[in-house]
């Protein structure tokens, strides 16, 4: 773990936290989770205000999501339109857009915090697939609230032990994500096994 960005947290405070979450939503390699954990720790030590820290992190993340979505919408949508001109591809793209509009919200929500490395790309895809702006914004903001609240809250709870907080949180999120995959895949296998039995 590099220590230099942590020294900047109490000095530059809220602006740094907002900038960190903003840039990490654009897929830049910024240690936003460690910064938020540290900020939570500093809030417990009385160096920063908890509510301000959460709001700053949330503001940066929501703004970053909006920029990613706008980039996908203005750049990506044009590209998608050009690709959709071929009849065969057009049908597939129309289907992808329909799925994104109908169920994209949950994907947006979960890629804020549980599968956060995917978040920046989902922003671009959501914009390019013309997912509704209001739906995107609400799901994204809800997901970012979980992300920021979780990291700052855990950082505060584990104040004075940053390594423990980041270590434990990494394991917990990994466990939740892999258990979710086990559940979904297991369910699909059960359904498929039943179908195979009906028509062997």
């Amino acid at each position: 773990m590099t220590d230099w960005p942590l020294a900047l947290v109490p000095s530059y405070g809220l602006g740094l936290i907002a900038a960190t979450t903003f840039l990490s939503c654009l897929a830049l390699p910024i240690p936003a989770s460690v910064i938020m954990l540290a900020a939570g720790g500093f809030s417990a030590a009385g160096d920063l205000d908890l509510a301000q820290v959460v709001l700053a992190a949330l503001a940066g993340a929501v703004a970053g999501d909006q920029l990613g979505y706008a980039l996908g919408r203005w750049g990506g949508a044009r590209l998608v339109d050009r690709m959709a001109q071929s009849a065969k591809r057009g049908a597939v793209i129309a289907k992808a857009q329909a799925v994104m509009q109908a169920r994209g919200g949950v994907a947006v929500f979960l890629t804020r915090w549980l599968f956060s490395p995917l978040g920046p790309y989902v922003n671009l895809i959501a914009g390019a697939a013309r997912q509704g702006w209001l739906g995107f914004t609400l799901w994204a903001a809800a997901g970012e609230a979980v992300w920021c609240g979780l990291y700052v809250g855990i950082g505060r709870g584990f104040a004075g032990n940053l390594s423990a907080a980041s270590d434990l949180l990494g394991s917990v999120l990994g466990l939740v994500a892999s258990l979710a995959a086990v559940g979904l895949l297991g369910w699909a296998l059960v359904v498929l096994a039943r179908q195979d039995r009906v028509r062997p």
Partner: protein
Amino acid sequence: MIGTLKRLWANHPRLLLAFLLASTLSLFFAGRLIVSAAYWAGHRQEAVQPWMTVGYVGRSWGVDPRQIDAVAGLPAPDGHPLTLEDIARQRGVPVAEVVAQVEAAIAALRQGSAP
């Protein structure tokens, strides 16, 4: 049961492999969680680092930060919080010196409060 698995393996090998991979990952994360929880239960305090403020160190070690200031001869925070690095820079001394002073202060304070 075995028959079902064989049929699944024949018809959906990739799905079955993905399921096994996800199960393995779950076991890995569960194991890591247990190991690190056991480890951190015995290692509450975090070593003093240049990026920490006196408040943060005090929180980690269960010592009043203002007492650390007093014992280590550090300035009380005024306005915005200072990291140990900031304090060292202001004084023009190496940060290791300030870290050592804080460590000595913690040791003294904890000894003083011990029964």
